[in-house]
């Protein structure tokens, strides 16, 4: 490779390379403990909320670097209402529905102030952050309410038994999990191949074959490796199903649909978008309604995992979500970012968290490191873009 190519490669895959280096670093310092199946499993289920909230946050950030500070409180509030309902023996399905509707309503409330009343998102959601934390306390009356519904906990990946059952009953090795990994790889390769053949036949530009193959091999290897690790523990954590569902749906939404296109366009140049006949207010509104919805989903996952609801749940979640987006390459000015980036960002933060915990590092220093990582990631992004000009 030429020098220019190398630097372009480094720039494009900075965060992936950083992720690899971080994993290697912690593998050495924890003597390989971080790669134990149990720990990989924890990494996923402990960070499920970051993936879900980060995806919602991405849509807000795309519209122009707008963030939502209220998500932590909304997670707590939606969870609190759901836990109370189930505690009062309301039907589980009704409780789930109620939580999601609450999320959407909160999103509409905040979206209304942001999109139509032009209240800066920072302020509108800061207000929500206070208000819904308060409401959570009121609903729970300051106490812990435990979640007892077994189905609810199982479906949303909480408690001790939170795995997709193994249909093959393998001894100590979960065949279903391994099979799912293999199927995922096959689908991935098939889709990529089909796209490539399509593009070639229509005479469109295609990426060089070597690069595509290399990329496919690496991604496939990672999927199979994770599947193997999970299989040798207890199998697929149910929370992983929800994460994948959210990532796939929103990955599609952002890249293939009209509304996805509008989100990027508004963040890239709001005036030009408005003058193209697009209702930009509605775009902002939708981004925040969606954020409310995903915050409620994260609330569901949170109370299921912790099998309870407390007034302090969700504190600082908003910052994890925002951090994941920015580490994943979203632009603080909007218009740039991707769901794949959120995955990288969330994983990177998760690995750092877990690695430091296993090393037995002081929690307070962990926060310092997290802060520095965020700063360096964004600074690097800004600098590498400046260099291009």
């Amino acid at each position, binding site marked *: 490779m030429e020098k220019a190519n190398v630097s372009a490669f480094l720039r494009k895959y900075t965060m992936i390379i950083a992720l690899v280096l971080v994993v290697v670093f912690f593998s050495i310092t924890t003597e390989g403990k971080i790669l134990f199946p149990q720990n990989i499993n924890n990494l996923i289920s402990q960070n499920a909320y970051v993936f879900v909230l980060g995806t919602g946050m991405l849509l807000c950030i795309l519209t122009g670097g707008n963030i939502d500070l209220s998500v932590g409180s909304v997670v707590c509030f939606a969870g609190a209402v759901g836990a109370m309902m189930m505690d009062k023996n309301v039907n589980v399905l009704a409780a789930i529905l109620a939580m999601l509707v609450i999320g959407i309503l909160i999103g509409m409330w905040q979206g209304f102030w942001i999109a139509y009343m032009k209240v800066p998102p920072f302020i509108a959601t800061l207000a929500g952050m206070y208000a819904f934390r308060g409401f959570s306390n009121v609903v729970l009356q300051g106490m812990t309410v435990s979640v007892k519904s077994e189905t609810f906990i199982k479906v949303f990946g909480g408690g001790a038994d939170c795995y997709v059952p193994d249909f093959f009953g393998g001894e100590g090795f979960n065949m279903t999990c391994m099979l799912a990994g293999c199927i995922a790889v096959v689908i991935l390769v098939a889709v990529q191949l089909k796209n490539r053949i399509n593009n070639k036949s229509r005479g469109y530009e295609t990426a060089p074959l070597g690069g595509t193959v290399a990329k496919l091999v690496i991604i496939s290897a990672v999927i199979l490796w994770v599947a193997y690790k999970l299989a040798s523990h207890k199998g697929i954590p149910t929370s992983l199903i929800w994460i994948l569902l959210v990532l796939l749906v929103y990955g599609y939404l952002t890249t*293939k*649909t*009209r509304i996805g*296109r509008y989100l*990027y*366009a508004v963040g*890239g*140049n709001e005036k030009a978008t408005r003058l193209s006949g697009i209702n930009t207010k509605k775009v902002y509104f939708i981004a925040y309604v969606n954020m409310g919805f995903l915050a409620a989903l994260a609330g569901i996952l949170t109370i299921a995992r912790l099998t309870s609801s407390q007034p302090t749940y969700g504190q600082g979640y908003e910052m994890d979500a925002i951090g994941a987006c920015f580490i994943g390459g979203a632009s603080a000015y909007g218009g740039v970012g991707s769901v794949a980036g959120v995955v990288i960002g969330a994983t990177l933060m998760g690995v750092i968290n877990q690695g430091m915990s296993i090393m037995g590092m002081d929690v307070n220093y962990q926060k310092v490191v997290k802060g520095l990582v965020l700063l360096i990631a964004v600074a690097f992004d800004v600098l590498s873009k400046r260099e291009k000009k």
Partner: protein
Amino acid sequence: MAKVLLEMKNITKTFPGVKALDNVNLKVEEGEIHALVGENGAGKSTLMNVLSGIYPYGTYEGDIVYNGEVCKFGKIKDSEEKGIVIIHQELALIPYMTIGENMFLGNERGKSAAIDWNETYGEADEYLKMVGLSESSRVLVKDIGTGKQQLVEIAKAMAKHAKLLILDEPTSSLNEKDSQALLDLMLKFKKEGMTSIIISHKLNEVAYVADKITVIRDGSTIETMDKHTTEISEDRIIKGMVGREITDRFPKRHNVKIGDVNMEVKNWTVHHPLYPERKVCDNVSIKVRKGEVVGISGLMGAGRTELAMSIFGQSYGTNISGQLYLDGKEVHLKTIKQAIKNKLAYVTEDRKGNGLVLTNPIRINTTLANLDSISPRMIIDKDKEYQVAEEYRGKLKTKCPSVEQNVGNLSGGNQQKVLLAKWMFADPNVLILDEPTRGIDVGAKYEIYCIINELVAAGKSVVMISSELPEVLGMSDRIYVMNEGRIAGELSAEEASQERIMSIIVSSGKGA
């Protein structure tokens, strides 16, 4: 003969791709008012930016000799220390600070850690008196009118001990009375020995106040007229400003049939969105036929863009009144979406700010205004989108490695083509092109003109807003001249000339 205070020798300034100033010479004597005139984009403001150090020494060629010594200004502070103070066209005051705070911003009284507010306001009041303002310097800037704000700017310049005052279009946002007061203030300062340079479009003001007039055209000095040796009339100045020859820069249209009226605007009045009492467009009536290119000429701030945007789904202004007919039927376009549906397109003058999403590729920009047509059931058909982008790239001869190229990396001419492609893909019957060739090179201009010709040949109507007189004359079948929000005149292609247009503008300005 008075002493020469400032001499700018052979100043050449190049921006990437454009030579903004080409061997400009300017000589200003002590105690005179020297006017710089020229069309939009002739290079007047660039020259003043070179002088004041906004473009630092080393980014231009040539010498600045001030007070007998060669100056190498690295930043604005350097030139201000010598007493050269520039007052920009857009007022640079901070609305929520007091007059006094504004006046000494970056030039604070007292110590750096302890501003002496008594001294600040005391001194500020003195300078305000000098410029004839009776306001207290403790008043917030937002609470005084634009006329007074302009005077505050001058007071601020005096506070910096200005010896050479440069005013860039000082009266462009002022009404008649405030303008007169400002010009008289300049004459008063002159008596006290101040030297000033004024840049202005308003030739009657220039003729009133200036001792000498230097004409700049296309980045070069054309001539300097001295009021005391030659008779200076507005016609004489206009001749200097526009006196270039039109050669074969515009492709001819052959056999384009001009048909029925495609769009008609009647009694169109638009008010300013922030100051609703101000009329930006006043009772404007225009019409465009099928196959016709109609030019709208006028100076900056004449209300042309505002007219176009208010027609385009009320994207500008408040209290819009008047009738709009498209293809013979009256329509009420309240949103941009409705305007596009009714086959109207507005191609903005500000392609980077209002037209394109620079961080997105050509493909995405091309389809943005008509995304519905390639996204059945909300899902974007990427194949179709790619085909559309490729089709327009071929049609408009956009130079780019691929349609996946980010628009921000293209040259101005190619960006303009992408912008045109975007609106052509929206399939309009009437296109309003606002400064379609601003800031692009001659070759690309010619190609844009060819595209305009193809559009009208296909039976569409084009309204072309342009500040470049030769372009308006070379391309239009008919020309409306706008000034101060009104249609000041209408000329057919045969009767139009640069002098006629300029004199319509000047005479209508005087009447107001």
